[in-house]
């Protein structure tokens, strides 16, 4: 990490009082540790995005195309025509301020331009200047301002300090959704080649290899095989999953993070064990090897291009339906976008659990089942032999991920699973969970290294709630159903809380799952000793 992150003590001194100087007169300051590097040209070239060049956000000259202003404003006009959300949200905000202290980045930084209302005003002021009569006539008095290079830089800086978590939209009396505004804002910036490297890289990788990490097919297979040997060591059971297999009943798609880095890998082991135990007729795909989609943080078109592979692969393999692993923004897209982009999924069948016979009526059109829906149904029907005491060394709390909460509403399924596989479960305070959940601080492609201070600030409210249950109940494990959470929450916990680790829900399932023919388990999926029966009785 190139920037030194201040200590938690320093960072938690936050002043919410805005400065004297008006926001329009306060030029943007690129504070170290709060922004990501600019995209390298090779990544933009790989997917044909405009204006590839070497540039740094801290540079005076961003090497913009000569007619950048025209491009930006024309892009804005086009999107006002294409998205009712955008046009409406530019017009109807009354600046009541209800959203102000709902943003984790504002709570963690006190920077007034991190108030959702002001983040949107950055773009709204430009909208007023070029697209409304009052703004054209009255200018600043009407809250309008010229689009200059400095204004563009300010927009860039703050569009990449929003994790598009939509918490503010829960509280807004008109449902104004800052994610819509920053998604479109980023799309406009991408017309000028202003992506971050941390987003553009995974996008380029994903386009070519099918996944963000750029894992090639043979390596993908290898990394899963690596887990299989771990599973065999722990359970004595040999698992042989299939890859790219035609004629399987189910295609399983999950974020590539779970196949690559701890602690997501343990969740992946959980999937493998569960499917084996069920004898599920399913296949992995090395081509559709990513459920996540950093294209979504680039432009709608890029998101659509990257998610093409999901239905295409299901069709090629001739599966009946698609099962999706634990991931946040992947599930917002699978729930709210995929069928619209690439449907109708009429080559698939309405999903039915082959184990319980349950019809997943809620996904009868897009035929995409969330694994928490699938597993909760198994447990409800008594199809799994579970020993929750194998998770007795864990005191678990559950972090609702932004996208699955506010873009889907999957609250009870994961909780039902956790309560069946763990004996010790504690909820965080009501105002920090479910639809009011706080972001990990690193969503929407902000989980880079160079902006660590921003991430720690953004994750402050979440960490604070975890600290509360740690102190009250001794919680030591933070469960979630999101791969970005599994990557982003561990450093957040180390920074603010300490001694709380992070897990996917299916790692807990893997621990508790009593498999046919397994040897006596002495360690959990992390190879750590289970609480022995004797010590529990004491």
């Amino acid at each position, binding site marked *: 990490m190139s920037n030194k992150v201040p200590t938690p003590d320093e960072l*938690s001194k*936050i002043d*919410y009082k*805005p400065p004297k100087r008006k926001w329009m007169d306060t030029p943007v300051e690129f504070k170290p540790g709060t922004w990501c590097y600019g995209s390298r040209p090779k990544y933009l070239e790989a997917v044909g995005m405009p204006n590839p060049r070497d540039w740094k956000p801290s540079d005076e000259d961003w090497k913009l195309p000569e007619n950048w202003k025209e491009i930006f404003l024309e892009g804005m006009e086009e999107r006002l025509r*294409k*998205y*009712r959300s*955008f*046009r409406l949200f530019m*017009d*109807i*905000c*009354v*600046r*009541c*301020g209800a959203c*102000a*202290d709902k943003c984790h980045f504002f*709570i963690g930084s006190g920077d007034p331009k991190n108030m959702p*209302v002001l983040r949107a005003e950055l773009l709204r002021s430009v909208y007023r200047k070029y697209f409304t*009569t*009052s703004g054209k006539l009255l200018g600043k*008095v009407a*809250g309008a301002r010229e689009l200059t290079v400095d204004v563009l830089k300010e927009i860039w800086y703050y569009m990449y300090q929003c994790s598009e978590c*939509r918490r503010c939209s*829960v509280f807004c*009396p*008109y*449902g*104004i959704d800052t994610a819509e505004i920053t998604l479109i804002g980023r799309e406009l910036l991408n017309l000028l080649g202003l992506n971050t490297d941390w987003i553009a890289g995974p996008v380029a990788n994903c*386009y070519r290899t099918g996944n963000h990490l750029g894992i*090639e*097919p*043979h390596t993908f*297979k290898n990394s899963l095989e690596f887990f299989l040997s771990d599973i065999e060591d722990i359970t004595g059971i040999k698992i042989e999953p299939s*890859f790219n297999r035609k004629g399987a009943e189910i295609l399983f798609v999950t974020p590539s993070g779970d196949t690559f880095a701890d602690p997501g890998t343990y969740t992946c082991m959980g999937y493998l064990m569960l499917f084996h135990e069920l004898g599920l007729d399913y296949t992995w795909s*090395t*081509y559709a090897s990513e459920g996540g989609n950093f294209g979504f943080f680039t432009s709608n078109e890029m998101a659509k*291009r990257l998610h*093409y*592979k999901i239905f*295409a692969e299901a069709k090629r393999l001739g599966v009946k339906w698609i099962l999706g692993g634990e991931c946040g923004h992947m599930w917002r897209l699978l*729930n709210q976008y995929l*069928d*619209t982009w690439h*449907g109708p999924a009429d080559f698939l069948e309405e999903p039915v659990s082959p184990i319980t016979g349950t019809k997943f009526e*809620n996904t*009868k*059109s897009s035929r995409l089942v969330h694994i928490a829906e699938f597993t909760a*149904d198994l447990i409800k029907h008594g199809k799994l032999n579970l020993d929750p005491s194998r998770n007795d060394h864990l005191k678990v709390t559950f972090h609702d991920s932004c996208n699955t909460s506010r*873009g889907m*509403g999957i*609250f*009870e399924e994961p909780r*039902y699973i956790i309560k069946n596989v763990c004996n010790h479960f504690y909820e965080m305070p009501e105002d920090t969970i*479910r*639809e*009011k959940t706080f972001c990990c601080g690193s969503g929407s492609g902000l989980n880079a290294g160079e902006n660590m201070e921003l991430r720690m600030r953004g994750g402050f*409210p979440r960490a604070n*709630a975890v600290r509360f249950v740690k102190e009250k109940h001794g919680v030591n494990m933070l469960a979630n159903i999101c791969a970005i959470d599994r990557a982003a929450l561990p450093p957040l916990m180390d920074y603010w809380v300490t001694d709380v680790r992070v897990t996917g829900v299916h790692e807990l399932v893997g621990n508790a799952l009593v498999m046919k023919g397994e040897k006596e388990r002495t360690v959990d999926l992390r190879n750590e000793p289970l609480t022995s029966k004797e010590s529990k009785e004491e």
Partner: protein
Amino acid sequence: MGALLSLSTALILVLIAFAGVKEANLHFLFGAIIPYIAIITFIIGVIYRILKWASSPVPFRIPTTCGQQKSLPWIKHSKIENPSGTLGVIVRMALEVLLFRSLFRNLKTELREGKVVYGSEKWLWLAGLAFHWSFLIILLRHFRLFVDPVPASLHLLESFDGFLQIGMPRLFITGIILLASVSYLLFRRFYIPQVRYISLANDYFPLFLILGIGITGVLMRYFIKVDVVNTKHLIMGIFTLKPEIPEGVGGIFYIHIFLVSVLFAYFPFSKLVHMAGVFMSPTRNLSNNSRMKRHINPWNYPVKAHTYEDYENEFREKMKKAGLPVEKE
């Protein structure tokens, strides 16, 4: 600066009306022409706004879900906060529009000794609700000046509004509530630092304007009495398209009607269009059923994607070596 500018604009408007009637004798302008212009601007302007919004499609189904989704039959579905069909959406929208459901969720976030704490914060909700409802009731009460004979429902409304039975003429509680709630909404714009920071002239101006309308209205009813019969005559004239200016309608009335005219004419060009816009908000008025029923994007277009064929062409040898099945040997 925004506040001062707005206040002085509102005061100048009062002076214009006063001088226009008292000094320049422009009764017909202020009592007929301007109200007509204002009404026409309001109607055309709001319709234009709505058509403009409606002309942009809703490409994706993006409700903000605030409760449990409809999934397995044994999991309790939050039918209103996360609707799966039209009925749920209607109830959700009704709660939003009539009771300000989302604003009711409001919390206050504070930092205490390095800890974030959340407290209930219902004042904005209460003042907002009180303001909008009292404004509506007052507007409806004014229909007694527009129609003859006055329908029974209006008498009923008036008897509710005047239930305190204080004074003569009877005190209407909504007048008090309107002035109090607008004052609070104005006060918080000055008092809460973040709200002051984000406030534009456009935010103060309608508040001052409505305050002016309320004050002149109260003055007219309880203090500087105007000739009600003649005033009604004037207003009926406007609504029957036979405008005339009877004698004895006080100057205060012209100030009142001028401010109302300005508010109506200003409406479509300002944030006040939230009144119509709230109904069209795609995060609220859509059901979360995009996995049950395909949502169509009218501008959906084909995109360049990396096909399986491209993929296999690049990795075929590696795939074969790793024992992965391939389409072409």
